[in-house]
């Protein structure tokens, strides 16, 4: 019976369908509730950041001392800070800084760390030795100290903070990618495509990178969280966002002074950062699983046992 069905199928569909790997990965991602929720939360945050001027109830930087340190109310949903600025509006505008810091930092560390790691691992030899000593040198510094030093060198400015944090994160990524590449390089499937005559570029981009993607994705989500939090620390030191510009980290740092008098001031950015970090981690974990074809549920699975 099963054989008959299979024959009919292949007659009707003379051609095989394109792989549709991305579609299947996306479908798998949406089957994961945590990743779906994380994805939704992040989307909302990004939308809020983009449309900040339209949705913010108040001006985030206008000082109104008469309304300072107000608890949450119908007018100020999450209260006001010590300058009387609306916390909700500051969080919405702060998303612009914090999310772009997170995103650009991982982009920067990705474009720096991944090529170094892959080249080092795949080519090996002297190149590997040189690159890795360089990476090790960076890794010996405490990360925040290194970032402070770089920003100090480039000047206090949010762009420089992003560069600094990217430089700090890249070596970690490079190490990880190198290790994964070393393992992938020894896989039989790499030998097999080498035997087919594939160029090194094809092998690295088409096969090695594709297979070390999972650890990279996980590391990048960790990097995103770290960047959001580090931006807070650097801003606190006066090296990042300059007042009165809102950012989650800055606001959090300032709120510490009023922790007992106005706990909402402290809680709001803390919870927001937590929510963002959790969401991105959920999405990262989901992505890692979803990118693995072994997790994909396909219509083939059902017929697979029946034919040969």
């Amino acid at each position, binding site marked *: 019976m099963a054989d008959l069905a299979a024959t009919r*199928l292949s007659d009707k569909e003379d051609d095989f369908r394109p792989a549709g790997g991305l579609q299947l990965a996306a479908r798998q991602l949406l089957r994961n509730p945590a990743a779906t929720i994380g994805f939704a939360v992040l989307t909302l945050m990004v939308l809020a950041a983009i449309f900040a001027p339209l949705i913010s109830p108040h001006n985030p930087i206008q000082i109104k001392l008469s309304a300072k340190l107000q608890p949450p109310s119908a007018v100020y949903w999450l209260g006001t800070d010590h300058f009387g600025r609306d916390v909700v509006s500051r969080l919405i505008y702060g998303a612009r800084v914090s999310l772009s810091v997170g995103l650009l930092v991982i982009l920067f560390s990705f474009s720096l760390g991944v090529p170094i790691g892959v080249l080092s691992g795949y080519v090996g030899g002297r190149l590997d030795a040189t690159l890795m000593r360089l990476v090790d040198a960076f890794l010996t510094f405490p990360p925040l100290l290194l970032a402070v030093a770089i920003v100090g060198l480039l000047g206090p400015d949010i762009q420089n903070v992003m560069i600094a944090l990217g430089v700090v994160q890249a070596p970690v990524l490079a190490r990880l990618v190198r290790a994964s590449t070393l393992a992938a390089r020894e896989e039989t499937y790499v030998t*097999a495509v080498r*035997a*087919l*005559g*594939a160029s090194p570029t*094809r092998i690295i981009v088409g096969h090695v990178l594709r297979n070390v993607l999972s650890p990279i994705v996980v590391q990048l989500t960790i990097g995103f969280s770290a960047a959001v939090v580090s931006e807070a620390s650097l801003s606190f030191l006066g090296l990042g966002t300059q007042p009165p510009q809102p950012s989650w980290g800055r606001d959090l740092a300032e709120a510490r002074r009023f922790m007992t008098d106005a706990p909402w001031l402290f809680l709001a950015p803390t919870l927001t950062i937590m929510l963002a970090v959790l969401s991105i981690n959920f999405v990262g974990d989901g992505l890692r699983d979803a990118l693995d074809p072994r997790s994909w549920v396909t219509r083939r*699975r059902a017929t697979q046992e029946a034919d040969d």
Partner: protein
Amino acid sequence: MTAGPFIEVKDLKVHFPAPKNLFGSGGAIKAVDGVSFTLERGRTLGLVGESGCGKSTTGYSILRLIEPTSGQILIEGQDILQLPQSQLRPLRRRMQIIFQDAGASLDPRMPVGDLISEALEIHGLWPGADRRRRVRKLLDLVGLSTQHAERYPHELSGGQAQRVAICRALAVEPQLIVCDEPVSALDVSVQAQIVNLLQDLQKELNLAYIFISHDLSVVRHVSDEIAVMYLGRIVEKADRKRIFEGAAHPYSRSLLSAVSIPDPDVEQRRRRIILSGDLPSPANPPSGCRFRTRCPIVEEDCALHDPPTRLLEPTHGAACLHIQKSQELLKWT
């Protein structure tokens, strides 16, 4: 077109640096140490021996997946070891390899259709719309259907994975395929399917096979000629009939007698040469004849002289100082 054999391997050596010990250099591991043979298209050379004898290293070096230390590999007269790395691609079209663990030889993140069309893409074969048609044709050739093209490697059984690997190798229209233990990991019923498939393809496409295996029963079934390797050397080489019915080297004889036969009475009556101990380290092979430490008929002079290959027939050579005595041994095994 030259008149020589399709492929001729001359005095191939592959030495790896041994791991260094406390006292400095560890010397060289002579994985392959002077291997020579020839092979014509449409024929199969079986390469047998225990693990560590250098049979797989030999196969890998022929494709230059491992760079040999010295020697010559002539394909229709052209020494491919002289080719610079950049000119290897045309060579890859002429020679392919399939592996023991076929599943692992397929990128787990690519569906079968992509894996096969990639091979075509690398060499710019069948461009455009023809490529997908070609993939279907190739799948059909190895007994798979179009729907297998959509599958990912983990969705394939062991036998199907090996069919896909064979299919991908055939995509570039090679003349020689190195088969590295292609059926060792498969169940017997599937093993027979793959063996028959390889034989049919050989007839149809006039392929030369170098069939590397430790399973002498399968090797006997598929090979025209057989080379027995021990510690980096070919100790005996002959056509199939001679090896299986009149092997002269004591190692070949021991290897043959160790293979079990699915026949209870035959097993009962057989007498085995049970070799003692394991393969010596290739970093430090015994002096003289390398087999002497395990040889059932060893003599004193075996430690002194490296035995040359003696021709017993025009197509049958064995490297043993005491072939006469070895053939006595033949009588009771």
